[in-house]
């Protein structure tokens, strides 16, 4: 392993302080916790999860994403959406509809008030 081929051409590592925040934004924390809780509840195994996450990371690399670790939770979220759909826990259409509703609610909620979805028929 000593004469590394083209080691000099490899990109430098991104740095991060040892006591930096665990999550950059709240959605990262929520996405993280949802996957852990669903796995704990037996909706999928951790090996299945790692397969989906690895596939997302590999796909990003093929798209030319430099993948410096800062978009990790975006890959995490895409993997979770796919696994939820593939396991039949929800459909793509349901997710798209809810995303639309949340976007509308966020845009139209005045500052200082909690954003909530309008009264609606829960998914079944």
């Amino acid at each position, binding site marked *: *392993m000593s004469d590394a081929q083209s080691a000099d051409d490899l990109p430098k590592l991104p740095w991060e302080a040892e006591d930096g925040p665990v999550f950059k934004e709240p959605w990262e924390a929520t996405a993280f916790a949802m996957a852990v809780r669903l796995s704990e509840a037996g909706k999928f195994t951790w090996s299945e999860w790692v397969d989906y996450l690895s596939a997302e990371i590999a796909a990003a690399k093929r798209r030319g994403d430099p993948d410096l670790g800062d978009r990790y939770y975006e890959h995490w*979220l895409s993997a979770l959406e796919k696994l939820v759909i593939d396991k039949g826990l929800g459909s793509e259409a349901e997710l798209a509809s809810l995303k639309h509703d949340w976007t509308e609610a966020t845009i*139209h909620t005045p500052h200082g008030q909690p954003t909530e979805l309008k009264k609606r028929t829960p998914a079944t």
Partner: protein
Amino acid sequence: MAHDHAHNAPPSETAMRVKALETLLTEKGLLDPAAIDALVETYETKIGPRNGAKVVARAWTDPDYKQRLLEDGSAAIAELGFSGVQGEDMVVVENTDDVHNLVTCTLCSCYPWPTLGLPPIWFKSAPYRARSVIDPRGVLEEFGVELSDDIEVRVWDSSAELRYLVLPQRPAGTEGLSEDELAALVTRDSMIGTALVEAPAS
């Protein structure tokens, strides 16, 4: 749109996707939002590399514990109360005068959460995942760790089944320190293998 002051800036697409997933799973009874919040709080405040540092300090001061730790990492770490997701199958690898261990995950970022918390950004990055196996000495140098050529560098690739914790060498000149004082010297990176534990400045 200046007249339309009731409208906010469009929210982040990503944040809305997360909201959609959370609502979907909650409405179907698959997720409890309170359990989500509790888990996040745990990872933000209670789980982190201080846990691993306690394991290392115990191993440095209690030879019987160290032996149990090297034989069955998961069980010995659980003795100190650290267990759970991504900590089920722990292997502890010991740095010695002859061997330096470096942990990576080439596929994604499997990492021993109960002992180290969530991985730092560089551990999740493609450059580290690739370079740690192609050129571990170069990576170590970039982290400021220069090893003599006669020290063997072993790279451990984590997986969904196995996760690794490096037991760093106890620095010289720390004979009089308590277990707590020793734990304070142990850094996250030293337990990944990208740093050595330094003796306290006297």
